[in-house]
């Protein structure tokens, strides 16, 4: 069984009076421990797909199952709880809360668990260690470079040891060097720590670092 199973998913949006069909019966699998890059022109639906997998949005019809759980059928509060446990999400920008330090930002998902302060601090330290920013724990986002910010975001994404790591254009705002840092990290997470990663990107170089690349155009998969 694949980690993520997408079966006959339809998704449409209402834009003013028009109905826009993004997916019309999409069926797709993501294997465990895979590192997939999703590419496609803007408007192709790749971000929407990510949102659907993460439970941020619901398909109009069809099912999405992640690690055996039918994500598409959960209630909003159920989804919230599920996300806290199973998903680490990294956005293109606006990831970190500027009023919190790096450590506090990474700690956020753990506030939703029953771990004690001591246990939380320990995990935060480990997560930041993995991304190589342990020495920047007490820094505020404004004191970090773009690449460092994204790495902190990744630390936050892995701190609760989720099933799935989803990234939406993680290197879109970064310069070459920072992008490099981030992609190397992702590869390590996938190879050494066996994390399943799905990354949306329109940067071909970034896509190269994944194990496989899927192309989506107008809601349809193309190989």
């Amino acid at each position: 069984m694949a980690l993520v199973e997408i079966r006959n998913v339809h998704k449409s949006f209402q834009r003013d009076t028009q109905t826009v069909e993004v997916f019309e019966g999409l069926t797709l699998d993501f294997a465990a421990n895979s590192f997939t890059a999703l590419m496609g022109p803007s408007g192709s639906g790749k971000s929407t797909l990510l949102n659907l997998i993460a439970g941020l949005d619901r398909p109009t019809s069809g099912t999405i199952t992640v690690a055996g759980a039918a994500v598409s059928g959960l209630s909003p509060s159920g989804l919230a709880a599920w996300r806290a446990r199973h998903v680490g999400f990294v956005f293109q920008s606006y990831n970190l809360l500027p009023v919190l330090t790096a450590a506090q930002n990474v700690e956020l998902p753990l506030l939703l668990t029953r771990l004690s302060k001591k246990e939380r601090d320990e995990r935060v330290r480990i997560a930041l260690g993995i991304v190589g920013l342990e020495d920047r724990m007490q820094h505020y986002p404004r004191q970090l470079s773009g690449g460092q910010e994204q790495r902190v975001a990744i630390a936050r994404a892995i701190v609760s040891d989720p099933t799935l790591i989803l990234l939406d254009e993680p290197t879109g705002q970064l310069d070459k060097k920072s992008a490099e840092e981030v992609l190397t990290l992702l590869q390590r997470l996938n190879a050494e720590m066996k994390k399943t990663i799905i990354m949306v990107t329109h940067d071909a170089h970034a896509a190269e670092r994944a194990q496989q690349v899927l192309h989506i155009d107008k809601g349809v998969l193309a190989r």
Partner: protein
Amino acid sequence: MKLFPLVFANLRRHKLRTVLTILGVALATFLFASLRSVVTTLNQGAEVASASRMVVTHKTAIVFPLPMSYKERLATVKGVEAVTWANWFGGTYGDGKTFFAQYAVDPDTWFAMYPEVGVPPDQFEAFKNERTAALVGKGLMEVFGWHVGQDVTIRGSIYPGDWTFTIRGVYTPTVRAFDDRSFMFHYDYLYEHTDHRAIPGWFVLRLSDPSLAPQVAQTVDDMFQNSSDPTKTGTEKAFNQGFITMWGNVRFLMNSIGMAVVFAILMVTANAMMMTARERTGEVAVLKTIGFTDRTLFGLVMGEASVITLTGAVLGLGGAKLLYGGGGVTMNGMLPGFDVTAGTLVLGFVIAAVLALASGIVPALRAARLSIVQALRHVE
């Protein structure tokens, strides 16, 4: 709750905004407490009245005096334990700008009627034994910087001429709401120096049993009903309350202004909360993505509003209590015992809670209802 650090961190985002809003709430609650305290203090003056005392005045108008002969007849009324009388002198001292009450009293009976007037025994004796002596309230001594033994000249207006007294004693009220700015002297002195024309302004009775008040009032008023000086007898409480209503509709005025103040600060607080909410749509989306529930987000925003209003309320109400609790403020003697009551404090905090709710509800609901997907599309 472990989410408190998040609430505080968010408040620290715009330190100036948070501080100004808190200060605004502090000012508003301070003002509210002050206004309400005017009403509670005035009422207290009426509450402080002794249930055992009654006041007998001229029925036609309080400014008309009563014959001294009434003294004996009042003493015969069933239920009356003691009788005393006094006269309002109503003069001016110095430049006449500072008002204080002057009474001509009968030393033998007045102080037994008013045990709240606390005088050291030796000073009281000195006062009793000297015709031209005066007994002055502690507060008044401080206002004019008088000392015991000093001569004080008061210009009479109801009783014209310059009247000189020697201060022989200082009294300190044993009950806070009791006026400590009065000036008392011998009734007999007034009597002598008006060619025996002065007569009591009013009589005070002590009841053996407070429940007899209605009967006593009826008996006394019936007794003098058809004379040329009919009486109006009432409890001390009713008498004091009569004075309060003389101010006009103070309660209404203070309450109206109080409401305006609260509403104004609601505008300030709600505005601050909404501005913050507008700037944080992206973050709310991120938090929800991580897995924070709608309910939690709601709680976070309400938490921020609550911290602001509660902190402001503590500052404002606490400040008012500290300022007035010392007893220093009496509005020139017109509001003795001015203080913030427990009731006012409670009401103040209730208002703070309502403020939190009213200012936070819209942004909190917005945060709770925020569609992550919509917000993210916005943000990126």
